[in-house]
Structures are given as C-alpha cells and as structure tokens.
C-alpha cells in the first residue's frame, strides 16, 4: 500500500497545484465584487489538500525506506481488467440509454452485465432484464409522474 500511497500522494499534490494555479482562476468568472473573493474558499481547500498530499508523500517515503509495513497491492492486474471491462460495459449501456431510451437501453445494460457476471440461463437473463425496467418505467411515468430517457 505504501507505493500506492506514494503514487496517490504525488497525483493529489499535482491535482492540488493544478487547482490553485490553473483550474480555479480559469474556472471563475471575473466581475465586480466587494468583500471576499469567490476563489477564496476553493483556493484555501486546495492548499490544505496539497499540504495533506505532500504529508502523505513524505509518510510513504519514510515507510518505504524503513520497510515497516509489508507491501501489498490494492488492485491486482486482474481486478483492474475486470473493472475496466465492467466500466466499459456500463458506459456502453448508458450510451444506449442516451441514444435509444430506457426501454431499449435498460434491458441491454442489465443483460450485458448479467452475461459478463457469468449468468448463462437465457430465461433468467430475459426476465431480469425486462421485469425491473418495466416496473421502474411504470412507477416513474405512471405513479410518480416523472420523465425517463
């Protein structure tokens, strides 16, 4: 975990600096104001974030040098691969929902994820993909009166 913490700390330090010097000034519109600047709060938080991240970097380096904690990897290559595939499938499902609506995208999203998770019974896939979408569609549009994509 120490090496992961070190990488995380460096990344967060860079993120904090990016916030302070680029994103907050660029993302805040200029205008006439009195009192305190709108950038005060996010800049203060980003500064504190950067200091904490630097502290994490220092702590990780000290731990690695002393070798006080056993090395462990929080995410294995296999976990990462599964995460990426699941994320791509979820994103793909959302795109289908966006383009074709919930009645087509919803069952597609559920079915694809079920098959990815190892479900091979076609009847179970079809029923699980169709039933929740139908129930949610009826609930949202007819009971709650809200719109769905």
């Amino acid at each position: 975990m120490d090496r992961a913490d070190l990488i995380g700390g460096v990344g967060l330090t860079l993120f904090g600096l990016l916030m302070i010097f680029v994103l907050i000034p660029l993302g805040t519109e200029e205008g006439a104001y009195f009192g305190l600047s709108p950038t005060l709060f996010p800049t203060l938080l980003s500064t504190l974030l950067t200091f904490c991240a630097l502290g994490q970097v220092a702590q990780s380096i000290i731990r690695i040098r002393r070798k006080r904690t056993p090395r462990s990897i929080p995410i294995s290559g296999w976990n990462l691969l599964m995460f990426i595939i699941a994320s791509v499938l979820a994103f793909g499902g959302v795109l289908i929902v966006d383009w074709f609506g919930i009645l087509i995208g919803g069952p597609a999203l559920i079915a694809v994820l079920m098959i990815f998770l190892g479900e091979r019974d076609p009847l179970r896939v079809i029923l699980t993909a169709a039933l929740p979408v139908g129930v949610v569609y009826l609930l949202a549009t007819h009971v709650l009166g809200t719109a769905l994509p």
Partner: protein
Amino acid sequence: MFNNLATAAGDIFTPLVIIYIIAGVLIGYIVGALPGMNRTTAIAVAMPFTFTMSPAAALSFLIGINKGGAAGAAVSAILLNVPGEPSAVVTTYDGYPMTRAGKAQKALKIALLASVAGDVFATIVLILLARPIARFAIGLGPIELAAILLFSITFIAAVSGESFLKAMIAGFLGLLLSAPGVDIETALPRMTFGFIQLYDGVPLLAVAIGTLALSEILVQIDAGWRGEYRYPRPPDDSGSEADRRLNFAEFVKISPAVLRGSLVGTWIGLLPGLGATLASFLAYTWVRRSSKNPETFGKGNPNGVAASESADNATVPAALIPVFAIGVPGSLSTALLMGAFMMHGLTPGPFLFKDSGDVVYAIYLGMILASVALLGVGIFGQRIFSLVVQIRESVILPVIVFLCVVGAYMESGGMFSVYLMLIFGFVGYFMKKFDYSFVTFVVGYVLGPMAELTLRQSLILSKSNPAVLLGHPIAILFLLLAVFSIWRFAIAGARSMQMERPTSEQDKKTQPETEEKT
C-alpha cells in the same frame, strides 16, 4: 407544539404515506439482508424516487430504509455467517453458532426484537434531546459554527480509518466538490467551466449514487465476477418448536443485554464518525464481561445477538440528533439523509424546529411508525428474507446498476447527471481500493456550503483578526477538541496500531471498524 403535532399526524397517518414507510422498511430489510449490499447504497438509489413525495413522507421513507437495513443485516449474519454490513460482524459471533445448533429462527427473532427495542429507545432519546440542543445551538454565531464544523470533520477523519491524512484529503476533496456553482456572495459562476448544469452545484445524487452505490458494485464485480454463488445454504432448523420460538421468559433474560446495547448504541450514534460497528462491538464486549458465563459467548449465546443488534439499530435514530439539532451529519447514511432534507427544501440545524416544526414532528411520527413497521415486516417476512440471501449476485448487481442510471437521471431530468454519476463511480472505486474515507468525503461535500458560509461570515465579522476568537469560548473549546482528537485518535492511535498489528485473519475480523467501511 400541539398544533404542530396535529398537523404532523394529518401528514403522516394517510394510507399512501403509511405504504411509503412500510415499503422503505421492506426495501431496507431486503437490501440489508443481501450480503455485500448496504443501506447507504439503498438510500442513495432510493432518493430520486422521493421527489414527488411530501418532505415528511420522503424522509420517513428514507429513514425507514435506514432502519430496515440495519435490522436486515442480521439475517445473512445469522444464516450464512456473512454479515450484510460491517456492523453485523459481531452478530455472527453468536448468531451463526445458533443457526448451526438448529436455532436459526430463534436467533432471527432475538435479532429482530433487539433491533426494534434499540431503535425505539434511541428514537425516544432523539425526540427528547434534539429540541433542547437545537435551542442551545440557535444562539451560536458563525464563528462557533465554523469551529464545530472543523471539529466534526477532523474528528470523523481521526476516527474513520488507518490514515488520518488520507481521511483529511478525502474531506477536502468533498468540500472542494461543493465549490462549483454560482458564488453565494457575488453571484459569479465559479468552477462551472461553461456547464450550465453546474450552476446549482455538482448534483447531490450524481455524487451519492456514483461514489456510494456504483463504486460498490464495481468493487463487487471485480472481486467475484464469475457469477458463482459464494455462500453455502444455511443449515436446516432442528425441527423442534422450542428452537424456533422465543418465549416471554427468554425475552426477559435477554432484556438487560438489549438495554445495554441500546445505551451504547445511542451514545456512540450521537458522536460523529464512530458508527454502528464500534457500537455493536462495544455493547457485545460490555455484555460478555458482565455475564456470569462469559465462556458461552461466541458459542451461541442469545445475549450476544441481542447486544449487538440493539446497539446497531440504536445508532440509526441517535445519529440523527446532531443532524436535527445543529445540522452536522456524523456518518454516510446521515450525510445522505441531510442531503435529502436539503433536496426537499429543509435546512437541518437549529432553525429546523422554528421554521418547519410540523415537518419535524411528522418525521418523528414517521420514525415511530417505521419502528412498528420494522417489527411487522420482520415477523411476517422472516422466512422470505431467509430466501432472499440466496439470490445470485449476477442478478442483483446489474439491476442496481440500472437503478443507479435511472436515479441519476431523475434528479435533473437529463443525461448530464448520469455521465457525472459514472465518473464518480469510477472515482469512488479507486477511493475504495486505496482506502480513502468515504465518510469524510460525503460529509465534506454535504457540509461544504455551510462551511463556506460560516467561514466567510467569521472572516468578515472578525476582520481576519484571530484575537476575536478570545471572545468566543465555545469556538475555542471546539478548536481545542479538534486538536485533541487529531492528537489522541490520529497520532497516538496510529502509533499504537503500529505496535499492535493483528497477526491473523481472525484478529483482523475482530478489529472494530467504523461505518466508513460500508
């Protein structure tokens, strides 16, 4: 008060609201019973469905999920030796041995009654304490409130994980996430990067559903994606009627344990960040130590189940006391509930009683009704919930991903929130894997606007002169408490943890975890 109570009764005792409350408890119970699922996920996914409800009905529904989830977690703990939530770990110690001895139904009944008792006890404490504390808090100025917020976040960070720095980083990220939107003072767009959808801030549900629900699903998918059922079938009961039923004499025997659990759960629930896991662990330890037969604990002693479950459930209403009284959440579920308050136009805190007294009383009544519903749902649904724990993950997880998409869409009525929810799901996955505290992150995000407002007001009032603090003893007290909590829990705690590392898996299992781990 009586006017408020009458209005509240009119709001709550309608067939539709009663159905909502029962549905909330039922959903919470089922989700709690499913191994790996937790009530926070259920609340996050259910929040968008409350848009059309009245504030009191919506909050009673969500609190019902919270209560049901806390009680339901015992089902898989007792039947499968797999806790539905980390707080139910202690229930497995005696619950599963009871199941192995053919007393599963009795253990479930004890867990249910203890849960309801703990819940009712803490609800009464909430009703008695919240208003007096709010009356006191109403006199606090922005400097005191800023100090209380600082203390809350540092205390939660100090007790919520192994690394204080990581927890603080998560807290600052959460606070930072509340910054985009139109500036409260100047009305200038800030960090919106041209997205009109961000003018009202980063959508609450996109953050909540993404980081709490979707990320959890992604973690579960990468861990057990093959779709094989991971848990064994629970053993059948002994067939003896005495092993199934819980008679009055047996209930009297466990009632001291229930009372102890309720006291511990209420006290721990009141304090920010400590969570239900620690409460159930402490209650169990207390009851075991005060028992004449401590050696029977861990081998199927009903008092162990009673202590753990009453403490777990007592934390649910108790954790709402700081939310109602000062507007500060101390856990993930209460942070979400506070978000739900705001979503429905209510501002939790000392003015809640003054501005929306009728709604508060309606929520109280809703909570009492939810306790009754918990008992009913538990009694009549016990055998069904025993089957629920057998549902395959390959069926549940995709359906929850679909509900996440629908939920994110319903908040804003556009796909922007859905894509944002996906991004937060991916971010949450890495936060979980790298052990960054979700509690401080979500609490920081929910408290962000209040923190900014009080900070600005404090700076303006004090003219940025720290000497002004000398005239605010309460603020000084909370600042000192913040420093003390960092020293006591973060620095000293880290040192002792390094000295006493657990050496085996069993040792790790018995380490009390905070609600962060949910």
